[in-house]
């Protein structure tokens, strides 16, 4: 192995270790001595991409292309860089060029699909390219991951789950496949299983910001379900008695209203408990960890949960209080439900900011 190859091998090893800065440092003397080396330039482009510098990555890949215009690797890097920079048209064109240059390589097809996945607009081309990638490399987990991502973007949960499971069969600790499989479960309403999946990811990769964000989403989904049940309960009681002509201080009215409220509160509690039991079963031993983690990962979720608990407690309390006080408690419960909705809006706003 000559010095030239040694520098490239060093850079590759550093990239494998997730150290793009070290990779660039290893490449620097090599590129200074051989500025025309397209492999070095492509590795530099890759390192820039890993470091999150898409513009520099694009520049390096384009330099490589100026030396070797038929370099499919460089075209893929150009596609990826443009994709990161939000330039979908250029990204597509570059990915298609790479595909036409090396149709026998699965990665070129995967790149075509990746551009559409990143743009969140799946075309027929992307579907076909993902299928082709799997056909060419059935033992490559990333090919299945690409196919799964295409299906996920198309909301084809069954196909996505099958593809991610296939990727995990080939590489059981594939982080992206694990994350996306849990995401599919979340989208399918299997919040417990999704929570378990994300907790497993965080156990092995605690720095995963995506998994933390997804775990927050799981908690939000669970709370939204409980919130919905309580809204229904509140609406049922309100609608049922909105047309009643009895004066509010009538003892009969009060008794009937409170009994009805008790039945509704109890029913809602049953629904909530059943839902939590389902979550517990699906998440298994990770459920307690999931619940304990919520206050640490998102304070607003705790506020939301507290409002919902207080809401139900007020509804239950109203069943046993004097009619006038009961009605006040009931109205307060409604106010808490509204406050819960406001928390949801605030969370969304903060997420977009």
């Amino acid at each position, binding site marked *: *192995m000559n010095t030239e190859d*040694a520098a490239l*091998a060093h850079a*590759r*090893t550093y990239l494998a*270790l997730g150290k793009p800065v070290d990779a660039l440092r290893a490449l620097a003397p090599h590129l200074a001595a051989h500025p025309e080396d397209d492999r070095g330039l492509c590795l530099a482009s890759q390192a820039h991409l890993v470091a999150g510098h898409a513009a520099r990555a694009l520049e390096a890949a384009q330099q490589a292309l100026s030396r070797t215009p038929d370099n499919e690797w460089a075209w893929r890097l150009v596609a990826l860089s443009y994709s990161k920079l939000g330039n979908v048209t250029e990204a597509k064109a570059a990915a298609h060029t790479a595909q036409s240059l090396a149709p026998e390589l699965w990665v070129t097809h995967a790149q075509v699909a990746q551009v559409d996945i990143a743009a969140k607009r799946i075309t027929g081309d992307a579907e076909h390219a993902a299928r082709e990638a799997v056909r060419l490399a059935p033992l490559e987990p990333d090919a299945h991951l690409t196919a799964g991502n295409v299906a996920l973007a198309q909301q084809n949960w069954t196909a996505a789950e099958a593809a991610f499971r296939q990727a995990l069969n080939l590489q059981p600790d594939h982080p992206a496949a694990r994350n996306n499989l849990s995401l599919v479960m979340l989208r399918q309403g299997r919040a417990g299983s999704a929570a378990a999946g994300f907790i497993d990811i965080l*156990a092995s990769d*605690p720095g995963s910001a995506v998994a933390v964000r997804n775990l927050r989403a799981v908690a939000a989904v669970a709370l939204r379900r409980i919130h919905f049940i309580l809204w229904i309960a509140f609406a049922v009681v309100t609608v049922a008695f909105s047309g009643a002509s009895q004066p509010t201080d009538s003892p009969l009215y009060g008794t009937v209203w409170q009994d009805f409220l008790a039945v509704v509160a109890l029913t809602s509690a049953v629904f909530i408990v059943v839902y939590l039991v389902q979550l517990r079963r699906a998440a298994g031993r990770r459920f307690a960890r999931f619940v304990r*983690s919520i206050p640490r990962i998102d304070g607003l979720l705790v506020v939301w949960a507290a409002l919902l608990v207080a809401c139900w407690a007020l509804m239950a309390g109203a069943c046993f209080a004097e009619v006038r006080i009961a009605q006040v408690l009931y109205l307060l419960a409604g106010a808490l439900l509204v406050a819960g909705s406001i928390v949801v809006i605030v969370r969304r706003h903060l997420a977009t900011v």
Partner: protein
Amino acid sequence: MEEPLISSLRRAIASSPDDIPLRLLLGQLLVKAGSPAEAVSLAAGVLQDAPDNVDARQLMSEALAPAASTSPASTDPTATGAAPPAATTPAAPAATEPRAADATPPSATIPAPAPAPPSPPAPAPAPAQPEFDWSAAENDVHELAQPMFTDAQPSVVPGSGFDIERSVITLADVGGMTSIKKRLNAAFLAPLQNPELRKLYSKSLRGGLLMYGPPGCGKTFIARAIAGELGARFLSVGLADILDPMLGNSEQNVHEAFELARREAPCVIFFDEIDALGQRRSQTRNSALRGTVNQLLTELDGVADQNEGVFVLAATNQPWDVDPALRRPGRFDRTVLVLPPDEEARESIFRYHLQHRPVEGIELKALARASGGLSGADIAYVCEVAAERALIDSAETGELRLITMRDVTEALREVTPSTTSWLDSARNVVLFGDDDGTYTELKTYLKKAKRL
């Protein structure tokens, strides 16, 4: 007549080097005798010992004045005493400009000096503002900021690419961090330093120590201190020392590092960034790295008594990425969490980074209180920023000024703790990945810091 006086003063200072008035007097005489560079050095020395000494600052300003350094006319006491600074400058430009251009390297952080008045249309007397002699100032500061521990001289052992050194620092040189020192003592040092007790309790010496914690908190420094504490040589091994693209060479490098440590025993072999070198084998498809982990395991296990006198230390920011096989008994089975420095340690770090700089009125305790959560590297950066502020200010005004408390507190406001993202990851580890209680120490800290 002045020459003998200067000589006498020199002898007097040699016999009592702490006599500040004497040093200042010599400095003044040197300025008058046309040796401002030496006077600058003397003033700097005095400022180092007594940063708020007004006379020393005055001497420094006089010595740095361009005319004093270039114009022989200034040797006339009456001329320097009577003439305002503007009067001393005419001779200066021709001499000082090239010097300044030679000596001051271009620096991104230092803007151009304060705008001079617009160039006069015709040759005219130089601007009234005296130019600052950056060459002399830089030389002066350069001498002030000597590295603290210079006697740990690295030496390359023939036939080896590794640097081995004898560490002269000990845990006593580590400011604060009492709990870490206690833990190190209990986990590592006490059994090593008490062979009789070790025999009594049949305590094995096998196994190494893994230090983990946020970046920039002094893990490497502590490793050197441990080597010093043990009176052992210190061999630091980084990723770049081991990785080799040739198949099998990385493994060979690991073996060579251990062989060198065995030859030089007693020796502390310190693996920095062990998470990269000993990455979980399941996480990497890179066969070279897998082989390196295997070799590391082999060397750590050794054969009977092969590693006698070799103390293996490692440091990582991400212990959760280290291959679990490396954490098994007999390998890196003892862990120490190296946290951001406590208040006492922060005070020491501020002192260390400011002691060789021209400072005045620095309240170290207040700084230590205000810098909670900062790592040692962050504090070094704060001092750097404070120095930069004073430097830029001096450049703009043309007047030398010392680093003040205000510079440091404002720098402190600009710097955010670099440990935050690490602590976020650490929180996730404790929340989701601590089934076996490996991170109990970390959990306790996070709870105490209200991050859990």
